[in-house]
C-alpha cells in the first residue's frame, strides 16, 4: 500500500484535503469567486502589476502642499508628500493622508442634480443670460486658485462682481487682520511669514501654527528648527492663550491670559523687556502699566516679568494669530504683537518677520474676504440685489456663523452648488453640479505662505473620475460658450486644461525656475511631473518696520457679547478642520490634546467643573446670546477657570454618514461682531454653562483612569 502511495498522489490527496478545508473554513483558495478585468487600453506610464505615482496638490486645505499619490490599476492607494515640493518637503499632515477617504467616500455627490450634464450646463448658461451681471455672485473656497482665476476672468469680462473667497479656516486664522496689521505697520498688505526655525525664542500670542494655522506642515518644520539646530541652542517657545492648544502643549511656557488681553500683555512685556535691556522705553510701550496689564490679563505680574526676562535676553519672534485676533480689538493686538518684533530688530532678518512671497503668477497680495465682507454679501442676497449665487469649494451654510443669516438669505437667490460632497449648502441648492474630487482634478494652487520661495503648486488627476462629476472649470467654460457673447469671449478655451496651459504660458520665459521648458506643452508636462513650478531664490519680502516702535497703539479692552460668565474659545479641530468630518479615519483620529474621537466636547477647567457640579461626560447646555448647544464635558486641566472651549468641525446636518448628526457646531454660538479689519470677533462671546443632568460618554483614546486617575480609587491625580 505504502509503496503505491507515490509522492504525486500524496500531493493530490493533500490538495483534496486542502479543498475540503477551504470549504469548511471559508478561507481557502478563492480563485473561482474572483473575476479579473484587464485594461482595455493600458494607460501611459503604467505597467502591469506596478504602481504608478502622480504628483499633485493636496486640496484638504488651502496651504498647497505637494502630494505624490500612489496608484495601482487605476485606483489611488496612498497619498504621500512630494519630497521635491518646497512647501512640505515630502511631508503631510493627517488630513492630507486621509484625502483618499474623501476620494472614495461612500457619500459623494454622484452626478448633477438635473440628471444629465447638458441640462445642468444649460441651467448655468440660462442664469448667465437671464440675470443682470450685477445680480450674479461667485463665492469660492480658498482652493483651487486656477478656478478662482478663471472665474475672475469671467466676471471681469461679463461685468459681474469679482468672485469672493472665503473659508472657515481663513476666518479662524484671521487672515484679513494679519494683512491689515501688516499694511498699517509696514505700509504694505500681505500675509506675514514668521521664520520660526531660525528664531532664538518664539512668543506666540494665540497662533496655533502646529495645528491648522496658515501652513501647519511648513510651520512644524519651523518648530523643529527652533528646537533642534546645529548652529544654535534649543529655542524657547512661549504660548499666550487662555486654552492650551496643541501648539501650546509643545511650549516651554504656557501663559493662560484672559481672552482679549493679548495685545495689552504684548505691550507690557515689551515695556518690561525694554526696561530690562536699558535705554529709552520706545514710545509704543509708554502708555502701558505692566501691573495693570497683568491684573487685566488675570496672570501674575511675576509671570510677565519672567517672560520679559526671556524676551530681553533672546532675539524673540512674536507671532500674533488665531484666537488672539478674533476679538473686537484683534487688529490692535496684531499690530502690538508685530511691533514687539521691532524690539528684537528682526524684520526681514533670519529668525524674524517677513511678508510671504508672492506666487509666480501673482502680482499683488490678495487675501480671502473677511467675514464682514461676507455679511455684506448676505445683505445683498437678502435685499435681492443678488439673484444667482454660485458656490464652489466652501460650504457657507456650515462655515459661516448661523447668526449671519446666510441660510435664510438663500431663500432669495437661485443657488448653484459645485460641491463634491453633499454638504449643507448643496442641500439648499437648486442646482448641484458636482465637481471632481481634488485627486481627480486639474489645477494649480498658489502657495500663500509657509516657504521662502515663490511656489505655484500643480494638480493633475491621479485617477479618472469615479462618479459622473465634471470639473467646474469645464462646466463654466461650456456654459459661457453656450451663453455666447461676452461670456464666450471671456473663456475662449476648449477645456480646463487649455485654460491652465494658457495661464502657465506666462511662466515659460521666466528664469530662476525649478525647471524650464522650450514650449508650453513641455512646460505643462514638467509642471505635472514635478507637481508645480517654483523659483529657486528666496522671494520673501522684507518689510519696513522702522516706525513700528514709534507708533501708538491703543490696545483697548475687548468687548464681549452676552451676559454669560465664561469666555468662549472656539478653535478649529486640528484633525478635522472645517471639512474633514466626513472622512471616517479623521473622525477616528484622537484629538491631539483631549484624545476624543468622533464627537464634540466642551473643555472646562476641573475646578470650574467642580463648582458647576459637573463631571466628565456630563452633558451641559452652553448658551450665548446667539444660540445654545448641548454637549458633554471634558475636564481639561489646561484652560483658564473662567473660560470654556469647543472645537469647530463637527455638528454637520448634512455632509455624509460619518459627519451627519455628530457632535455640535461651535459656530452656532457665535455672533456677527467684527474687529477693525473686518474679521469675525469669534472670541468675543460670553457663554453660560448649565448642567442638564444627562450623561453622554465621550470616546477617548486615553484612559481616564490612567491619565486623570478617575475611577482608580483614592485621590485623583
Amino acid at each position, binding site marked *: 500500500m505504502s509503496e503505491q502511495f507515490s509522492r504525486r498522489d500524496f500531493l493530490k490527496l493533500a490538495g483534496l484535503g*486542502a479543498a475540503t478545508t477551504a470549504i469548511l473554513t471559508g478561507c481557502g*483558495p478563492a*480563485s*473561482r469567486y474572483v473575476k*479579473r478585468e484587464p485594461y482595455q487600453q493600458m494607460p501611459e506610464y503604467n*505597467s502591469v*502589476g506596478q504602481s504608478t505615482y502622480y504628483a499633485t496638490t493636496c486640496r484638504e486645505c488651502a496651504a498647497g502642499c505637494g502630494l505624490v499619490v500612489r496608484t495601482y490599476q487605476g485606483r489611488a492607494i496612498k497619498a504621500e508628500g512630494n519630497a521635491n515640493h518646497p512647501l512640505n518637503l515630502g511631508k503631510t499632515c493627517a488630513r492630507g493622508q486621509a484625502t483618499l477617504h474623501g476620494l472614495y467616500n461612500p457619500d459623494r455627490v454622484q452626478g448633477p442634480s438635473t440628471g444629465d450634464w447638458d441640462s445642468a450646463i444649460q441651467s448655468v448658461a440660462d442664469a448667465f443670460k437671464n440675470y443682470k451681471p450685477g445680480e450674479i455672485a461667485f463665492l469660492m473656497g480658498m482652493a483651487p486658485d486656477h478656478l478662482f482665476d478663471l472665474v475672475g476672468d469671467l466676471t471681469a469680462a461679463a461685468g459681474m462682481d469679482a468672485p469672493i473667497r472665503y473659508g472657515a479656516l481663513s476666518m479662524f486664522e484671521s487672515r484679513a487682520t494679519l494683512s491689515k496689521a501688516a499694511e498699517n505697520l509696514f505700509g504694505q498688505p500681505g500675509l506675514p511669514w514668521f521664520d520660526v526655525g531660525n528664531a532664538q525664542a518664539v512668543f506666540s500670542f494665540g497662533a496655533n501654527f502646529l495645528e491648522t494655522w496658515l501652513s501647519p506642515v511648513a510651520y512644524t518644520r519651523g518648530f523643529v528648527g527652533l528646537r533642534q539646530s546645529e548652529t544654535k541652542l534649543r529655542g524657547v517657545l512661549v504660548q499666550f492663550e487662555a486654552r492650551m492648544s496643541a501648539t501650546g502643549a509643545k511650549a516651554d511656557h504656557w501663559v493662560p491670559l484672559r481672552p482679549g488681553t493679548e495685545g495689552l500683555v504684548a505691550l507690557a512685556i515689551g515695556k518690561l523687556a525694554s526696561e530690562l535691556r536699558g535705554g529709552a522705553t520706545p514710545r509704543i510701550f509708554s502708555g502701558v502699566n505692566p501691573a495693570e496689564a497683568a491684573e487685566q490679563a488675570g496672570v501674575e505680574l511675576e509671570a510677565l516679568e519672567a517672560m520679559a526676562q526671556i524676551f530681553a535676553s533672546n532675539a524673540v519672534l512674536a507671532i500674533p494669530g488665531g484666537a488672539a485676533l478674533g476679538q473686537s480689538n484683534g487688529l490692535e493686538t496684531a499690530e502690538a504683537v508685530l511691533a514687539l518684533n521691532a524690539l528684537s530688530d528682526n524684520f526681514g532678518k533670519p529668525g524674524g518677520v517677513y511678508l510671504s512671497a508672492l506666487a509666480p503668477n501673482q502680482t499683488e497680495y490678495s487675501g480671502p474676504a473677511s467675514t464682514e465682507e461676507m455679511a455684506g454679501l448676505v445683505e445683498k442676497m437678502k435685499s435681492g440685489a443678488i439673484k444667482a449665487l454660485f458656490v464652489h469649494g466652501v460650504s457657507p451654510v456650515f462655515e459661516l456663523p448661523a447668526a449671519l443669516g446666510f441660510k435664510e438669505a438663500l431663500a432669495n437667490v437661485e443657488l448653484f452648488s459645485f460641491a463634491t460632497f453633499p454638504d449643507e449648502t448643496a442641500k439648499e441648492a437648486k442646482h448641484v453640479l458636482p465637481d471632481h474630487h481634488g485627486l481627480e482634478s486639474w489645477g494649480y494652487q498658489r502657495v500663500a505662505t509657509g516657504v521662502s520661495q515663490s511656489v505655484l503648486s500643480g494638480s493633475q488627476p491621479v485617477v479618472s473620475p469615479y462618479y459622473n462629476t465634471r470639473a467646474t472649470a469645464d462646466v463654466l467654460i461650456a456654459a459661457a460658450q453656450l451663453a455666447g457673447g461676452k461670456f464666450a469671449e471671456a473663456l475662449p478655451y476648449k477645456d480646463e486644461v487649455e485654460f491652465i496651459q494658457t495661464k502657465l504660458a506666462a511662466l515659460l520665459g521666466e528664469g530662476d525656475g525649478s525647471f524650464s521648458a522650450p514650449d508650453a506643452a513641455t512646460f505643462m508636462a514638467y509642471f505635472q511631473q514635478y507637481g508645480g513650478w517654483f523659483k529657486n531664490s528666496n522671494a520673501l519680502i522684507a518689510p519696513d518696520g522702522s516706525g513700528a516702535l514709534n507708533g501708538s497703539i491703543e490696545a483697548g479692552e475687548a468687548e464681549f457679547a452676552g451676559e454669560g460668565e465664561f469666555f468662549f474659545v472656539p478653535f478649529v479641530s486640528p484633525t478635522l478642520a472645517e471639512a474633514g468630518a466626513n472622512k471616517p479615519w479623521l473622525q477616528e483620529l484622537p484629538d491631539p490634546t483631549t484624545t476624543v474621537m468622533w464627537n464634540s466636547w466642551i473643555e472646562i477647567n476641573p475646578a470650574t467643573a467642580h463648582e458647576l457640579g459637573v463631571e466628565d461626560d456630563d452633558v451641559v447646555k452652553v448658551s450665548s446670546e446667539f444660540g445654545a448647544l448641548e454637549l458633554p464635558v471634558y475636564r481639561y486641566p489646561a484652560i483658564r477657570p473662567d473660560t470654556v472651549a469647543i472645537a469647530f468641525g463637527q455638528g454637520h446636518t448634512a455632509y455624509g454618514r460619518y459627519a451627519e448628526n455628530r457632535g455640535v457646531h461651535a459656530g452656532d454660538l457665535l455672533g456677527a461682531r467684527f474687529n477693525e479689519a473686518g474679521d469675525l470677533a469669534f472670541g468675543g462671546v460670553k457663554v453660560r454653562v448649565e448642567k442638564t443632568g444627562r450623561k453622554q460618554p465621550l470616546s477617548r483614546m486615553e484612559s481616564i483612569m490612567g491619565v486623570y486617575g478617575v475611577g482608580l480609587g483614592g485621590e485623583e491625580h
Partner: protein
Amino acid sequence: MVKKFFEWLKKPMGLIAVGIAFLALFSGFAYWLNTTQQSPDQPIQFPHKTHVAFGIQCLYCHPGASKGPAAGLPSQAKCWACHNQIAKTQSSALLAPLKDAVLAGESLEWVPVAIVPDFVQFNHRPHIAAGRNCEECHGDMSQVNVAENPQVMNMGWCLNCHIEAAGEDQEKLIKLSDCGTCHY
C-alpha cells in the same frame, strides 16, 4: 409501518439499499468536490497551446512576472494589435467575444486560475530571478488550451520548493522559510 421498514433494512436487500444510498451520497459529494477543482469557465476558451506554438513568449503577454508581484493579463489593446490583422478574428466564433468587447469598449472578465489567498504576498520577480521557469509552477502551456493548475498551490507545496532551493545554505533557509516572507 415504520417498524416494518426498519425490519426490511436489516434484510440483505435492505442492507444493499443502504449501501447504494450511501455510495450515491458519497459520489455526489465527491463529484461536487471535483467540480470545485476544475478549471473555471472563461469568457473565451483561450488556446494557450496555439499561442505558444506561434512562438510567443510567456513574458510577452504577462510581462509583470519579471518585474514585480503580478504577472498580469494583457490589455485588450495588446490582443487586438495582433488579432486585428488576422482575418480569422472576424469570422471565428471563438474570437467573437474579443471582437465584441474591443469594438464595444467593454472589458472581458477573466477568471484567474493560479491564485493565492489574500493573506499570501506572492511576488513573481524573485522566482523568475532565481531561475524558475514559468512551467515549473504553471505547467506546460504548449499542451493545454484553457490554463489549468497542474497542482494545488498550497503552503506545503510552496514550502517544499523553498526548502529544496535553500539546500544547505542556512541563511537562505531562514529567509525562505520565514513566515514574514509571504505573510504580512
